[in-house]
């Protein structure tokens, strides 16, 4: 409403200001103000859209904020000590889209012979976007036969789930999966 008024005022002033005022029919004037009005709205929605994009951009690198980076470092230290995890060997099976963040099924499989001398010692699951990112810390033994676990997790929002596995010789591997969460599952 406010915008429309200013438009009309503006238009009126324009015509009043011209040295030789031309009489224009009401219709044409309305058409012109409509045009002006449209233009203004267009610019406004463009500005709004742009600011929304900027806000999203600010949220996106949440994983690299100092607090979460510290949490990640603490988690890694506790999970695998000073070992540097390499990519591979860890297969994380998660749905691409989880409709309900309260129970998201997942399967983890780590490639290993699981013999007495060479087996997967531990597997740690970390949800990067959860208020409490740790999910489980599992221990396996050669009796496990395969380093495989299937369970269900809670996910607060769309995020990456990272799995770190440590072998009996101390080497570490990691795998990752991205899940799109429709309804978050950590209570409000």
């Amino acid at each position: 409403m406010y915008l429309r008024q200013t438009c009309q005022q503006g238009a009126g002033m324009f015509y009043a200001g011209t040295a030789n005022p031309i009489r224009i029919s009401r219709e044409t004037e309305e058409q012109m103000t409509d045009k002006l009005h449209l233009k203004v709205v267009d610019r406004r929605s463009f500005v709004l859209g742009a600011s929304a994009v900027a806000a999203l951009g600010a949220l996106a690198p949440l994983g690299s904020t100092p607090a979460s980076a510290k949490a990640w470092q603490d988690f890694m230290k506790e999970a695998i000590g000073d070992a540097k995890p390499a990519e591979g060997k860890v297969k994380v099976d998660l749905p691409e889209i989880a409709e309900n963040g309260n129970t998201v099924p997942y399967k983890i499989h780590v490639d290993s012979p699981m013999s007495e001398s060479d087996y997967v010692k531990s597997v740690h699951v970390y949800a990067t976007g959860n208020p409490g990112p740790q999910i489980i810390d599992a221990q396996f033994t050669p009796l496990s036969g395969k380093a495989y676990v299937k369970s269900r997790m809670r996910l607060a929002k769309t995020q990456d789930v990272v799995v770190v596995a440590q072998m009996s010789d101390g080497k570490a591997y990691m795998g990752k999966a991205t899940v799109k969460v429709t309804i978050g599952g950590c209570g409000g």
Partner: protein
Amino acid sequence: MAKPRIKVPKMAKVGEIVEIKSMISHKMESGRRKDKKTGKVIPRKIINALKVTFNGKLVFSASLHPSVSANPYFAFDFKVPGSGDMVFEWTEDGGKVITAKKSLKAA
């Protein structure tokens, strides 16, 4: 509350890899939910650990965090070394332990 259910095959061959499934009914109160009436935070009460042994030897264990779904379900593999008993132990916040046992016969 806290009723365990486990699935272990009754019979298996020595050296065979079988899948063991377990579930325990538990709310897994995360400590982040608020009571809708009073607005107070409901204190955390989860099952924080699961330990599975076969004839006293560790097969699989896990520490659980609040991000584990309610009614925690775990399935894992087990390489049958012989006949024996599989014992599950769930530990709740506060130290209460719930146990379940299943026997397996190996051929």
